[in-house]
C-alpha cells in the first residue's frame, strides 16, 4: 500500500495570496518530502486560511501551488484542482469526524470514496485505527471518543489515503495537558514514518519545537520569520516570537562597533546595551530572514531571561558590562523559577529575568520596587528584528 517511490514527488511548493474582507494572506513555503513545516502564529494570523487554500477549499487570488510535478493551483493560468483531486490529507482543528459514522466508518470514508470495496476499506481502516492505538474503539461514534481518541481517528482518516501532503490544523489544541504529551510523542512518531510533506499549524511553540524541521511564523497574514526551530528560538525577529520562545528582544535605535571588539546598541530613551557580537551579526538576515523587505530590519539584542541577574542594590564594577536601573512590574511564580517582569528606567523597555525561588527569597521583591539588572555582554546576541 505504501507508495514505493514517493520521495521527490511529494515535495510541496506554494505561493498563496488570498485577499478577503480586508484580510490579506501572502505566504511562500516549501516542504521537502518527509519534512515537517510548522506554521506558528497568533489567533487570526491566517494559519487556517493558509491550510484551506493548500487543501483547495479556498481558491487563492494569485500564486501557485505545486506538489511534486503536479500544479494544483495557478489562478493566472485558470488552474484550480478540486479538493477531491489533490491527494492532500487534512486533519482539521476540531477533527470534523462525521458525527453519524463510527470511528471505523469515518476512516473508511476516504477509501470508499476512492472506490475501494467496502470489505477491503474496512480492513484497511481497522489496521490504521490499530496502528494509531484505538483499534478497540473502532465501533464508537465520535461523540463517545475522548479528545485524544478523536485526534487519532482524524489522523488515521487522513493517513489511510496515503496522501502525498498532510496538513494538520492545531492537532493538539483540544487535548488536556497529560493526553497532549502522549499524543505529541505519538504524532512525532507518525510524522517521522510518513514519507510525504507535512504542514503543521499550531500556536504552541513546544509543538513546533518538537515536531518540526522548519518553522514559519505568520503574523497578520505575512511571514515574519522562518528558520529551523533552533534558529527561531535563538534569534526571534518579532516581539511575538520573542515572547513565545521566552527571550528578551530589545530593538536598537543605533548600533556601533566597539574598539575592543563587540558592539554597543543604543535604544529609545538612551538605554545602552553591549554585546560581544560584532555589528555585522545584526546584518546577517540569512536564516531568520523575513519576506518583508530588508529595509524593515532593525538591529536588536536578544538574551535569555536566565542570563539576567537581579540586584536590589546597584552592583559594583565587575564583568557584566550591562547594568540597568529598572522597576519591578510583575512577578510570576513558576515551578522551579520565578520570572520577574521589569521596566528599565531609561526608555521603559520590558526585560524579563528568571531567578531561583531561593534568590527570590533573599531579594524579597514586590511590584514597584527598584532593582538593578545586569547581563554579561557575552550573553547578549545581535539579530535583525522585523
Amino acid at each position, binding site marked *: 500500500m505504501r507508495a514505493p517511490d514517493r520521495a521527490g514527488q511529494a515535495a510541496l511548493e506554494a505561493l498563496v495570496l488570498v485577499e478577503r474582507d480586508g484580510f490579506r494572506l501572502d505566504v511562500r513555503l516549501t516542504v521537502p518530502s518527509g519534512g515537517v513545516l510548522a506554521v506558528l502564529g497568533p489567533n487570526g494570523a491566517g494559519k487556517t486560511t493558509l491550510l484551506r487554500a493548500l487543501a483547495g477549499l479556498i*481558491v487563492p487570488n494569485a500564486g501557485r501551488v505545486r506538489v511534486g510535478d503536479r500544479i494544483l493551483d495557478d489562478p493566472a493560468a485558470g488552474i484550480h484542482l478540486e479538493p477531491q483531486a489533490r491527494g492532500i490529507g487534512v486533519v482539521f482543528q476540531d477533527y470534523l469526524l462525521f458525527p453519524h459514522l463510527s470511528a471505523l466508518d469515518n476512516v473508511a470514508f476516504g477509501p470508499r470514496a476512492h472506490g475501494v470495496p467496502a470489505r477491503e476499506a474496512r480492513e484497511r481502516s481497522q489496521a490504521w485505527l490499530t496502528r494509531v492505538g484505538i483499534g478497540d474503539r473502532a465501533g464508537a461514534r465520535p461523540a463517545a471518543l475522548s479528545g485524544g481518541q478523536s485526534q487519532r481517528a482524524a489522523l488515521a482518516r487522513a493517513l489511510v489515503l496515503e496522501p502525498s501532503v498532510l496538513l494538520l490544523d492545531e492537532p493538539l489544541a483540544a487535548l488536556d495537558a497529560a493526553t497532549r504529551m502522549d499524543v505529541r510523542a505519538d504524532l512525532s512518531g507518525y510524522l517521522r514514518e510518513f514519507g510525504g510533506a507535512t504542514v503543521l499549524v499550531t500556536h504552541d511553540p513546544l509543538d513546533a519545537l518538537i515536531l518540526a524541521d522548519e518553522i514559519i511564523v505568520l503574523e497578520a497574514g505575512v511571514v515574519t520569520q522562518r528558520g529551523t526551530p533552533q534558529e527561531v528560538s535563538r534569534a526571534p525577529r518579532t516581539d511575538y516570537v520573542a515572547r513565545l520562545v521566552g527571550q528578551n528582544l530589545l530593538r536598537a535605535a543605533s548600533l556601533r562597533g566597539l574598539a575592543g571588539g563587540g558592539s554597543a546598541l543604543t535604544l529609545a530613551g538612551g538605554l545602552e546595551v553591549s554585546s560581544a557580537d560584532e555589528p555585522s551579526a545584526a546584518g546577517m538576515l540569512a536564516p531568520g530572514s523575513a519576506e518583508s523587505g530588508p529595509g524593515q530590519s532593525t538591529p536588536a539584542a536578544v538574551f535569555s531571561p536566565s542570563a539576567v541577574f537581579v540586584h536590589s542594590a546597584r552592583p559594583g564594577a565587575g564583568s557584566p558590562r550591562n547594568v540597568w536601573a529598572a522597576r519591578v512590574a510583575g512577578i510570576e511564580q513558576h515551578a522551579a523559577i520565578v520570572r520577574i517582569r521589569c521596566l528599565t528606567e531609561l526608555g521603559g523597555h520590558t526585560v524579563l529575568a528568571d531567578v531561583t525561588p531561593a534568590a527570590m527569597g533573599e531579594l524579597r521583591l514586590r511590584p514597584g520596587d527598584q532593582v538593578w539588572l545586569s547581563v554579561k555582554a557575552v550573553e547578549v546576541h545581535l539579530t535583525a528584528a522585523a
Partner: protein
Amino acid sequence: MVGYEVRADDRAAARAAGRAGDRRGGGVPGALWVPAVIAIAFLVLPLVALLAKAPWGSIPEQLFTPEVGDALRLSLLSALAATALCVLFGVPLAWVLVRSSDWASPIFRRVLRALVLVPLVLPPVVGGVALLLLLGRRGLAGQYLYDWFGVSIPFTTTAVVLAQTFVAMPFLVLAVEGALRGADRRYEDAAATLGASRWLIFRRVTLPLVAPGVSAGAVLCFARALGEFGATITFAGSFPGVTQTMPISAYLALQSNPDGAIVLSLLLLAVSLVVLVSLRDRWIGVGT
C-alpha cells in the same frame, strides 16, 4: 494504493471554479439540480398558467372596486392580527413544549406536540365547525359568553382572526420549537448566575437567541392566515367588509365569474409576496 491521477475533468472543474474565494466541498452536485428544477417548475408553472389565463383586459375594472379594497384590507389586517396572536401565545407554548423535557415525561410532550398538529390535519371546514361548536352562540363555551355577556363571536372580524389563528398556530409553534431546541441553554445558565430572574432570562436572553426562528414562524403564520378559507367561512361567515376576506371573495367569484376569481387570487398573491419579500430582511436578519 489509492491513486491520485489528474483526471480529464479536473481542468474543466478548475475553470468552472473561476473566481477566488471560499469554495465549499459541498457545491451543488449536478444530480440535485434535476429534482430541484422540477420542484421549482411544479411550484411556479401553475402560477404561470393562472397568469396566462388571467383576463388582463378587464383587470382594472375587476380590481379597482371598493369591495376588493375592503376584502384586501380585511385580509391583511386579520392576517397580521392572527400572526401577532400566534406569536404572543405560540412562543410560550413552544417554550413549554421544549422545556417540559426537564420535568415532564416524554409521553406528555409527544401528546402535547401531537395536539399542536391537530389544526394542521383537521380539514379547515371541520376546524371551523369545531370552533363553532366551541365558541358559537350555543357552543360549549360560547353559550356562556352569550348568556352572561351578550357576546357572540361568529360573524365578526374577531371570528376571522380566531379562525386564522387556529389554523396558523402550529406553524409558529413548530418553527419556534426547532429554534429553541437548537439554542445553547448554557447562555441561560450564565444569565442565572448573574442574578437574572427566569422571566428576565426569557426576555433578554432566550428570546433574542431564537429571534430568527420566531421570524420564520411568523412568516409562515402570516402566509397561512392570508390564504385561510374553509375555517373562516364556516366559523366567521362572509360579510363584505366584516368577515369577507380575499380568499372568500375569490371563492365566491369562482361561482359566477371564474376569471375574476383568478384576478383576485393573483392580487392576494402579489400583495402578500410584496409584504414577505420586503419585511424579510429587517425581520429575519441579514444573510438569511
